[in-house]
């Protein structure tokens, strides 16, 4: 017997509506977890999972989380791109759950780039 019902989502909907009414405005940042075969095999799902958990814990609602494919740097996976509103994207390499939590708390929430994990600045160009 399942205790959590899809109807419970209605309660979540009402709760979210009452919260967002107070807080207008756009998104603070976009975080992309690269989810190609190489990323998945090296732990990208756990990185995304850690990201979602820290977002749940901090109840952050102004960060967009998305996934993308392989960008050709399979040996540096798992890769995560953090793009703060109006700033250049930062690519982090060889991520894990702890690094992801640190990057979220320090970079996404406080704006401080976590240099030791950075692979590159800017967007990749796919030809």
């Amino acid at each position, binding site marked *: 017997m399942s205790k959590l019902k899809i109807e419970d989502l209605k309660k979540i909907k009402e709760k979210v509506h009452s919260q967002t009414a107070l807080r207008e405005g756009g998104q603070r940042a976009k975080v992309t977890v690269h989810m190609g075969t190489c990323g998945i095999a090296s732990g990208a*799902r756990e990185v995304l999972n850690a990201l979602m958990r820290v977002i749940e814990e901090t109840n952050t609602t102004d960060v967009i989380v998305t996934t993308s494919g392989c960008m050709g740097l*399979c040996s540096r996976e798992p890769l995560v791109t953090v793009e703060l509103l109006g700033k250049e994207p930062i690519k982090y390499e060889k991520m894990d759950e702890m690094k992801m939590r640190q990057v979220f708390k320090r970079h996404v929430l406080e704006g401080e780039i976590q240099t030791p994990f950075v692979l590159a600045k800017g967007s990749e160009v*796919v030809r």
Partner: protein
Amino acid sequence: MLELALHILDIAENSIRAGASLVRILVRESRSKDLFLMRITDNGRGMTREERERALDPFYTTKKVRRVGLGLPMLAEAAERTGGRLRLRSRPQTGTIVEASFGLSHIDRQPLGDIASTLIALIVGNPGSDFIYRHETDGGVYLLDTRNIKRALEDVPLNHPEVTGFLRGHIAEGLGDIGASA
């Protein structure tokens, strides 16, 4: 890949890259037949006969950023070493079906692993697509359909922290109820 749930994530990501708006994932465990089956059905752009024949070749890929494509070959290998096999059906403009069968009790069968994380990764990363997850065991059926969830949530996004927390609980509970293997 250490878990079958990671293979499912990988194959479903293929569906998304193929432009699928709906991805159906079926997992079937049957003790009486000693069978573990996973089937991913999408309505993406599909493959031509030539593409389908080459899809299991690790040195074939449609990607431009690298020269290998390992997702399907690794799944085929994982299935074959448990006495199972991989079947690929596809038609251009219609979609693709990837079906892998495994010996349920075979010692080389990878564990199913963390299905909740796989589904949340798909749902969060691809809000524009819908997913139907169906898990059948001898003890019952668990079903998750993001179209129903979206209808109940209306304008609240699926990747809202309240919703992902709910989904994690819903999946874990549902799979526990039907006695799904880990």
